[in-house]
């Protein structure tokens, strides 16, 4: 992939009943977080498929995509080396019986990348910012806890995968700081798509795309109020995580202190 993807534009197609989707265009920019919501079978998978393919009215939905305001060339669409979307899902596990360090090295090799000095350390450091339980390079991949695995997957995808779009599918309650995870992905310049109904994640996104009957029915820009709500929900979740950590360490939980910090506005 030579040209960097800065912006993806979705032009409307049709829903299950052949009716045109009710929007003019949706623009998704680098560093943005988009939540995709809708019932099971509503058409979320089709939308993701269209994005992965950069559909040109040639899929069932008849949607059309522009990359950086231009029609993407064939090379970009069909090159098997190129994977536009990297994904993270609740059901994913590590399978390799290998140390964290060797695993990351192997992943780098498979991408044909030379490891930048200190990159592996960085991956692990960022993973440790997401999970409460520290990961060390010597640990075996199979012995990582659910939270550690999830955190390492996020950091690995952010730093090593070249895919410009990250799809997060229903990543919930895995014992990780979700908002930190998203932050790391955004900082690495990824477009983050989240299929979720988790309130703190969905309300923290920049936009919500609502899907029904195979078509996009609504696009909501997250309001300031919703961001505020997301902030509080996140805080409660992280507080929960802290107590969880204390329980793990065998400490006694004497009281729960709920207090609220004033909301920090994004610049």
């Amino acid at each position, binding site marked *: 992939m030579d040209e960097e993807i800065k912006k993806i534009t979705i032009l409307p197609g049709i829903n299950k009943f052949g009716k045109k989707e009710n929007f003019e265009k949706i623009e998704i920019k680098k560093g943005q977080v988009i939540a995709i919501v809708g019932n099971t079978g509503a058409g979320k998978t089709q939308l993701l498929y269209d994005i992965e393919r950069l559909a040109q009215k040639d899929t069932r939905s008849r949607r059309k995509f522009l990359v950086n305001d231009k029609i993407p060339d064939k090379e970009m669409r069909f090159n098997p080396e190129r994977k536009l979307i990297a994904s993270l899902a609740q059901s*994913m596990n590590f399978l390799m019986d290998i140390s964290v360090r060797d695993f*990351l090295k192997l992943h780098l090799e498979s991408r044909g990348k030379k490891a930048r000095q200190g990159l592996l350390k960085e991956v692990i450091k960022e993973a440790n910012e997401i999970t409460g339980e520290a990961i060390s390079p010597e640990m075996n991949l199979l012995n990582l806890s659910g939270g550690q695995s999830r955190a390492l997957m996020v950091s690995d995808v952010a730093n090593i995968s070249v895919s410009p779009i990250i799809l997060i599918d229903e990543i919930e309650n895995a014992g990780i700081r979700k908002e930190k995870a998203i932050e790391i992905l955004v900082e690495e310049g990824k477009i983050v798509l989240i299929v979720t109904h988790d309130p703190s994640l969905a309300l923290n996104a920049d936009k919500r795309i609502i899907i029904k009957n195979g078509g996009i029915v609504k696009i909501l820009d997250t309001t300031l109020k919703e961001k505020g709500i997301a902030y509080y929900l996140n805080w409660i979740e992280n507080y929960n995580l802290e107590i969880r950590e204390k329980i793990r360490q065998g400490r006694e939980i004497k009281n729960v202190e709920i207090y609220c910090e004033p909301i920090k506005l994004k610049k």
Partner: protein
Amino acid sequence: MKFVIFAGTPGSGKTSIIKYIVQELKENFKLFFAKFDCLQTSDDERIKQEYKIPTVKKLAGELCPDHYTALEIPKIVKENQDKDVIILETAGLCLRCSPYIKEGLGINVLDITSGDPSRYGPILTQADVVAVSKGDLISQAEREIFRAKILKVNPKAKIVEVNGLTGEGAIDVAEFIKLSSHIENKKLRLKHSMPSAVCGYCYGNKIIDEKEVHQRYLAGKELKKLIPNLNCGKCGFKSCNEFIRAVLDKKVKKEQCPFIKQKVVTIKKL
């Protein structure tokens, strides 16, 4: 007519993904589905009922399922001249011989949780399309590593990630089928030769003993000279080899082959 072979180990998700592909293709193409297996299967019935396309079931029984598949292919092609796409699903037991055809399309459905791809033989290395299944179960990094490893053993492979539960990837595989070449009026060639059947065990020997197995081999070879090797099925067996085994096991008499009888008669006349 296009000819597509799906090969992959049992449980890799061949049938599930084929269903989605049939769904994708049946509107615009006349399809035929042939399911090969060893002992039993009901996949053909399921696909026939669900998608209303003609299907056939072929059970290899005592034969190597892939040799049997190759033997049956000409019949299937002959009987389905009016079809646009023939989809054949192999038993998928052996990684060595998966009878891909040069003129057709060979698709390997490969379970991503099944370990290092470098262990696989022709089933992977000779495939035109590798449909990687169950990718939703493992990390993105491992998926990327897996992909790189596939390309190491099969650099020309077109890799598609498929999901038998959601149908993800079926459209891509269907696309490759549409792009594959027609087989009409072409001599079909296997992409690679199958392992030889060379010993007494191939003629049904069970005792592990050098002498016994050699004697069995010689006896089988003698019989083989007498029968026409047409696999015509008139003796009640699917193939001549199966018939020879039964004769050597003394389950049937060799005269059950109508062609042996004929030969005996002509000699007497002389």
